[in-house]
């Protein structure tokens, strides 16, 4: 934060007063009273404009939401939809670096994490890694996580999961969980029950 911002921070909580007092040393501002009256009128009008803008912003957000739903309905209908999520539980024994996901040995998603993304996961965030389509049937999902252990060594953790895709949307969460009994992390697969 620069100087300007620190002033802003102070003046946010304190009435700005100094300017008027300083000017009073050599000038008496005649226009001040009328300016105050004008300001009150302006504020009312400004508030109206701010409300209009706020309303439009809400509408843009709503439109975006509707288009998202339409897009998902068209591209990933529930009957074929599969989504894969990634989460990290504390990340004490494993600092996630990358993940690779395969379905029936075919690579469907891969991700390299930045520090910020890793921290967001460690703070409780869930990442939607993959959204795709699968026909009804049986499949095998394989996930390989690469990361750093507390000693700074590169380690890998993997999981394989057999599942059957039916007519409902399939949501699978891959959780990197710390196991305090073994001082290691492991990958736990959770299928969301909708």
């Amino acid at each position, binding site marked *: 934060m620069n100087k300007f911002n620190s002033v802003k921070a102070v003046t946010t909580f304190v009435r700005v007063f100094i300017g008027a007092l300083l000017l009073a040393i050599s000038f008496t501002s005649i226009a001040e009273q009328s300016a105050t009256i004008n300001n009150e009128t302006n504020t009312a009008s400004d508030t109206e404009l701010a409300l209009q803008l706020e309303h439009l912003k809400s509408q843009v957000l709503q439109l975006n939401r509707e*288009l998202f739903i339409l897009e998902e309905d068209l591209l990933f209908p529930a009957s074929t939809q599969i989504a894969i999520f990634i989460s990290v539980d504390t990340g004490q024994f494993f600092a996630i670096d990358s993940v690779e996901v395969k379905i029936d040995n075919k690579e469907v998603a891969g991700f390299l994490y930045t520090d910020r993304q890793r921290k967001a996961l460690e703070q409780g*965030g869930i990442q939607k890694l993959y959204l795709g389509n699968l026909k009804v049937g049986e499949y095998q999902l394989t996930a390989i996580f690469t990361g750093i252990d507390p000693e700074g060594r590169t380690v890998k953790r993997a999981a394989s999961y057999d599942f059957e895709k039916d007519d409902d949307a399939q949501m699978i969460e891959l959780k990197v969980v710390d196991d305090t009994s073994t001082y290691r992390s492991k990958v736990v697969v959770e299928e969301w029950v909708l």
Partner: protein
Amino acid sequence: MCLTTTVYGESSTEDEQDKNKQNKPVIKTDLQDKYYRQALYYYFQGYPAQALTQVEQSKAKLTQLDSRSALFEAGLQLSAGLLQPAKETLINFETFLEQERIAAEKANLEDDNDEHTEKHQKRAVKAKELRLIALLSLTDQYLAQGDISQAKDTLTKITTVPAVYYPEYYVLNQLAYWPEKNKNLLAKPEDSTNENSPYIQLNEALRLIELAQADATHYDLAISALQQIKVTPWHEEESSFWKTLFIDDAKLTSPAEKLQIAKLQSQAIQDYAKLLLAQIYISQQQYDLAFVELKTFPGESPYQESALFLFAFASQQVKQYTISLNLLNLLIKDYPYSPLSWQSAELMAAQVSEQQSLAQGVSAYQSVESFFVQRQQDLSDFSREFNQSHNLLTFSVSQLSNLQLSNEVLLEPAMQHPPNQEVINIGDRVDVVNTVEYFPKSVWLQQALADVELANLYQSLIDIDQQTANLQLLKDKTAWLAQIITLNQQRKAKIVTSKKLREEQGTFALLNNERDRLAAIHAQQLANEDKAAFANEVEREWLSRIENSYKALNAIGSQKNTEEYKERLARVEGVLAWQLAQQFPQRSWAQTKQLQQLNKAIDEATAKQKNIERISNTQDAIDLSINKHNQSETQLISLLSQLAQLREQISIKIKAKVNAYIEEQNVTLAEHVLTTRQSMANVLERMAVADKRLSSQLITSPEKTSAEKDFSQPPSTMKETD
């Protein structure tokens, strides 16, 4: 449905898992929590706009958000400037919590345990605190917008305040009810430890200064408060996640940055207190005290300009002329567009005229006059250029990169996905949180922007441009969705055609008939235990040869002795029959299995056929998508037009405000020019008087040198003191 799970490092067999599955009841996933955490993933990366979009999408999918997600949404809406929806959520929050409590009690009765209520109670306690934080933040934003009535109204929604939030609550009350005191202010909690918040004290001192204009006794109280503030070290409290979300401006900064911010804020508070103190001393004409106060004012303070001016003025009053002259010259040089600098110019010229020679005074006044004329010219140029500009945001931009940042911010999260990844939600890129500020090169405009209302209007303009950019993205998306709908329609048409063809050819009926025929034959063969029916190709050949041999033997009849042949044939037939009997169970089972597979294949084909029938009958779904798409397109066009209109209105308002500012500055400059000219005339008059006196002295006395000496001396009142 889960079949098997193999987790490396974990030992679990399929049998165990199946057993576990049978024993455990199916518990539905807490989707509220999962969606909330997806939004958190964006928030923790510093993308509140994406987080808000995610929450909105979750809301659409889940129909209603739980209290925690609703509060998170309110916080994100506040940071996006969507005050009204945030306020609605917060006001209705008690009802919301009550609904959740009833739902939890109902769930308890169904499950026969207290888990749900306990969970709810824990959440409710936290939620009340969060609601308070959100209401405080909302009040703050209304105050920043100058909407005092909304700020007061929001404050009335607060019914209890824990000690930790009391200083913030108190300050917001001070600002909302300024200069009065809020009579309905909640009582200070008993465990309040932070009652000496510098902001409360500063505001209190300011209030006393205002009151002192009517009753001078208030000055003493103000001085005492300010003296306390300027020596009190101030430390910022630790911010929790929720406090950061709702209140703090500087989000997700590093610890080092936070420390620096805290130091700067602490310094700024102390500097402000010093400045106010000096101001009071000057208004009480205690210039020596003001001089002492400002002597140690830090050079790197954000209040440097005001402090310089006060210090120069105080120095002049305590006859520290060298200091005051230097300071006044510094102000003129460093802040040529500031009204304080203009006052300084006049003070400087007055000091030169009084302290040095009248001739030097005239020269100083001439410089000052030309300085003011130059400013008038600058102001006129600025006015012309400003009024000619069509897009106010491109006028005199000094931080172009900052404005361009908006697009980078919009695209950044999406670009982080690797190209092979399919998670490309265009919706994720829509940014409603404004991260950009307009900072002009023009000093006039920079000064005009000190007016909060004008700054807010400029911010609105940036918001509108950002929303327009968002809508352009959505427009691209609708075009893309139109293509998808067309492709879906084509795909559906193909499906319907091939279905019709299959129906015409009676493919399914033929297949079913054939299956029924085969099943009947197989059943007959099994019932008759017709082992020969299951013979393989070689065996069939053998059976055929045996049959032919029998026929040949029958034809020969008694013409020849065929007993030996018949015996051999019977032996071969016996061996073959034994072999067929041996293979019968296996072969009959294999054929039954094949028949089952055929049945399964036909069932699958039937299911597909039904699916196809369903798809071919889903004209409604496609029509619905088309309708939604058309509605979206119409809405898009309408929104773009409304935004354009609003932009126009705001631009007009900004121009009016800036022109009013220009007019104000023009009046001030004209006053300065006038007073400068009047002062210069006075000096010239004094020079004329002095000249006249000199002439008369020259006539009456030849002692010319002494008169010249007098002329160059400054008046006794302006002699510098040590």
